[in-house]
C-alpha cells in the first residue's frame, strides 16, 4: 500500500490532449481529444484506492469510482464500464460535462496537496472505449410508461425501464431528440454522435421516440394516462431565459444564450446559408453571466468569427460558477474577462441595432448567502464597452407550457414541479425530474433524478425490490 501511495502522489496528473486553440476556434469539432490507453492507465494508477473513498461521496449518483479505476489499471475496460453503468446511464456524456472539480475530483484526497485523479477523463475514456454492451434478452412486461422530454433525465428513466421490459414512449417537442445535450451544449464540448449513440441505444431496446410531440399540448399527462400508460415521467427541462432587466435589452443584437445556442446547435446556423436558420455574426461580442452556458456562448461566438469576445461578470474569476476547464479553454481561445462589471443599459443606433453597453464598476463586499462575496457598485465609474452582439446567459426559469396544462400538479414556490423523495408528483403515477424540478442544474443531477423515478416506477410495478 505504501508503495502505491508514493506512486500515486509522485506521478503528475495527465493533461488532456486538446486541439490547439488557434486551430479549434475555426471548427466545431471536440476540443478535448481524450486519453490514450497509456495515459488512462497511468492516470488510473494515481488512484490511492482509499478504504473510504471520498470521491464517491462527491458523486451525485454514487459511482463506485475506485472500483472502476482499478479495472482501468488492469486494462479491463469492459468491466470498468459495467461498474460505471451500475450507477450512471450516460458516462460518455457525464465524463465530458460533469463539474468534476465540485464533485468527485473536488473530494479526492490527492487534491489536498496536489492534483486530484482525473476521474472525469477516466470515465470518458472508459465510456468511449468499452465494447458495446451485450443487451440481455429483454422480457416484455406489458407495462407502458411515457417520458415527456428527451434530455438527460428522460433518457435515463427510459433506459432504466426499457431494460426491465417496460414499453417506453418518449415524447420530444423539438424536431431532434436529446434535449439540452442537443440544443444547448455545443458540439465542441459534446459531439452530437455521442448523444446519437445513447439515443440509438434506447431505440435498440425498443423505446419509441416521437418527435414534434409537445408535452402539455400534443400530448398531456391526462391524455397519456387515459391512453393506458401506467406512469408518466415529466422531464421537460428548463424554460424561459432570465434577462438582465436593463434598458435597451430588446434592441436588435441582444440574444439570450438559449436562443443563440439553439440557433447554432439545433438549427446548424454555423452552416448558414446552406442551412436556413440564421444567427447574428457579431464582431465585438459581450456575454453576460459566468456559468458553463456563458462559456459555451462565448466560445461559439469566436467560432462564428467574432473579432473580440468579452465575458462580463459582476464578480471575479474566482467566483465564476463554470467548470474550471471551460473557463481555461475559453481563455486559451482568446475570450477576455471583464470582471467586476455590471451592465447598466444597452446602447443602440437609430435603427435599433446594438452599438454598446454601459457598464458599472463593481467591488466585492461581504459574503452573501451563497458564500460568495457580494458585488456592490462603485459610483461614478461607468464606462462603455463597444459591442454589436450581446448574449445574456443568466440561467432560466420554469417552462409554463407543461405546467399550465396539467391541473392538479403541485408546484414549488419558485414554480418548479414539487416531487417526493421517489420523484413522484402530487398526481399519482406521475413523476418528474431534472431542471423542471430543481431549476437549472447539471446533467448528472437530472440523470440521477431520472434514475430515481425509474426505480420507484419499477418498484411500484413489482419489477424490482
Amino acid at each position, binding site marked *: 500500500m505504501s508503495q502505491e501511495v508514493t506512486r500515486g502522489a509522485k506521478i503528475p496528473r495527465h493533461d488532456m490532449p486538446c486541439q490547439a486553440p488557434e486551430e479549434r476556434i475555426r471548427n466545431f469539432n471536440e476540443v478535448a481529444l481524450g486519453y490514450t490507453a497509456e495515459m488512462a492507465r497511468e492516470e488510473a494508477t494515481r488512484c490511492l484506492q482509499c478504504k473510504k473513498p471520498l470521491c464517491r461521496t462527491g458523486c451525485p449518483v454514487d459511482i463506485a469510482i475506485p472500483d472502476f479505476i482499478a479495472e482501468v489499471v488492469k486494462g479491463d475496460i469492459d468491466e470498468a464500464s459495467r461498474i460505471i453503468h451500475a450507477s450512471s446511464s450516460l458516462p460518455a456524456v457525464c465524463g465530458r460535462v460533469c463539474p468534476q472539480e465540485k464533485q468527485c475530483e473536488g473530494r479526492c484526497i490527492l487534491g489536498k496537496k496536489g492534483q486530484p485523479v482525473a476521474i472525469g477523463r477516466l470515465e470518458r475514456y472508459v465510456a468511449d472505449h468499452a465494447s458495446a454492451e451485450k443487451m440481455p434478452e429483454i422480457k416484455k412486461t406489458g407495462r407502458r410508461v411515457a417520458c415527456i422530454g428527451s434530455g438527460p433525465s428522460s433518457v435515463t428513466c427510459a433506459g432504466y425501464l426499457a431494460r426491465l421490459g417496460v414499453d417506453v414512449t418518449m415524447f420530444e417537442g423539438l424536431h431532434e431528440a436529446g434535449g439540452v445535450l442537443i440544443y444547448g451544449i455545443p458540439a465542441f464540448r459534446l459531439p452530437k454522435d455521442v448523444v446519437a449513440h445513447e439515443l440509438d441505444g434506447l431505440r435498440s431496446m425498443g423505446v419509441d421516440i416521437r*418527435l414534434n410531440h409537445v408535452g402539455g399540448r400534443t400530448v398531456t399527462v391526462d391524455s397519456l394516462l387515459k391512453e393506458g400508460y401506467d406512469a408518466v415521467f415529466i422531464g421537460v427541462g428548463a424554460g424561459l431565459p432570465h434577462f438582465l432587466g436593463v434598458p435597451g435589452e430588446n434592441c436588435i443584437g441582444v440574444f439570450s444564450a438559449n436562443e443563440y445556442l439553439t440557433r447554432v446547435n439545433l438549427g446548424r446556423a454555423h452552416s448558414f446559408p*446552406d442551412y436556413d436558420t440564421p444567427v447574428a455574426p457579431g464582431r465585438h461580442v459581450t456575454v453576460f453571466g459566468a456559468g458553463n452556458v456563458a462559456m459555451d456562448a462565448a466560445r461559439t461566438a469566436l467560432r462564428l468569427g467574432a473579432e473580440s469576445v468579452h465575458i462580463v461578470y459582476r464578480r471575479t474569476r474566482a467566483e465564476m460558477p463554470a467548470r474550471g476547464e471551460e473557463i481555461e479553454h475559453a481563455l486559451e481561445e482568446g475570450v477576455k474577462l471583464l470582471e467586476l462589471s455590471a451592465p447598466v443599459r444597452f446602447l443602440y443606433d437609430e435603427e435599433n441595432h446594438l452599438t454598446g453597453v454601459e457598464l458599472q464598476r463593481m467591488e466585492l463586499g461581504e459574503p452573501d448567502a451563497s458564500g460568495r462575496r457580494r458585488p456592490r457598485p462603485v459610483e461614478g465609474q461607468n464606462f462603455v464597452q463597444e459591442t454589436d452582439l450581446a448574449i445574456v446567459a443568466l440561467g432560466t426559469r420554469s*417552462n409554463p407550457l407543461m405546467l399550465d396544462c396539467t391541473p392538479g400538479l403541485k408546484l414549488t414556490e419558485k414554480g418548479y414541479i414539487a416531487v417526493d423523495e421517489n420523484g413522484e408528483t402530487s398526481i399519482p403515477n406521475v413523476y418528474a425530474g431534472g431542471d423542471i424540478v430543481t431549476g437549472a442544474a447539471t446533467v448528472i443531477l437530472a440523470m440521477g433524478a431520472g434514475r430515481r423515478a425509474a426505480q420507484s416506477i419499477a418498484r411500484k410495478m413489482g419489477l424490482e425490490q
Partner: protein
Amino acid sequence: MPTKILHKEKLIPGRTSKLVLDAPQIAATARPGHFVILRVDERGERFPLTIADTDKEHGTITIVYLVLGRSTQMLEELEEGQEILDVCGPLGRATCIETFAAPKKVICVGGGTGVAAMHHIAKGHHEAGNYVIACIGARNKDLLLFEKELSLFCDEVLVSTDDGSAGRQGIVTDLVRDRLDSEGGNIAEVVAVGPVPMMQAVADLTRGYNVPTTVSLNSLMVDGLGMCGACRVTVGGQMKFTCVDGPEFDGHQVDFAELRSRLGSFRTQEAQAREHHRCNCFERKEA
C-alpha cells in the same frame, strides 16, 4: 413526424396559398388562436404559422402563408400529396373568447394573410354565440382572402380595397371606425390580425373608443416552446413571450414600434438566404 398536404389551394398565385394538413393529433386539441411550428426539410428553419381552421372530424388543420422568405418559398414548392418534414403544435394560448349578449357585437379585423388567422378566431366567437362583424381589407379585389369562408358564418362581412375594386375604397380601419361610430357602444371587443402597422392602427383607433382590443402577434421564434426568448415583446411595460404568453395580447398595451424593429432582426440574412435559395434550390431538392 412528416405531415401530409391533403389539399393545396393557390389563393393568390405565387404569393399566398392555403394548405390543408393531415394532422389529427393537432386538430384534436387546437383551438382558435393557436399556432404551429413548421420545418420544411432537413436544413430548414423552424417558423410559426397561426392555424386558420381545424376540422376535428377529418383530423385536419388549415394554414395560410405569404411567400416571403426562403422557408415559405420552400413550402410553396410542395404540392398536394407531399409532406412537410416537421409540424408541431398546437402552441400558444388559445383566444380568450367571452360571450356577449345582444346587442353587443364583436368586430374581427384581418389584413393580408392575417385574415386567415382571424378566420379561426371569428369562428370561435361565432360558435360562442357572438354577433360577428368581419372587416377585411386588401390593395385590390384579387388580393382579398377568405371572404367566402368568412361569409359562411359571420353575421356581416365588410370589405375595403385601396383602389375601390371591391367593397369600400379605403383602408380597413375606415370600416372599423364607421362601425364604432354607428354602433354607439355596442362593440364589445375588437380583434385585429395582420401586418403590424394595421394592428397598431386598429389599436390606436379603438383606444379612443375605449373598446377592448386583441391583437395576434407574429414575432420571430426559434423553438416556439418557451425556451429561447426570441419572441419577447413589451406589453404594458413588461417583458412577455409571444410563444407562451401570447400570441394574443391587449392591443392597447403592446409596444408595436419595438415589435416592428425586432421583426427586422435578420433582414440582411433573410435577403442572403433568398438569393442562396434562388441559386441552389435545384441542388437542395436533389439532396
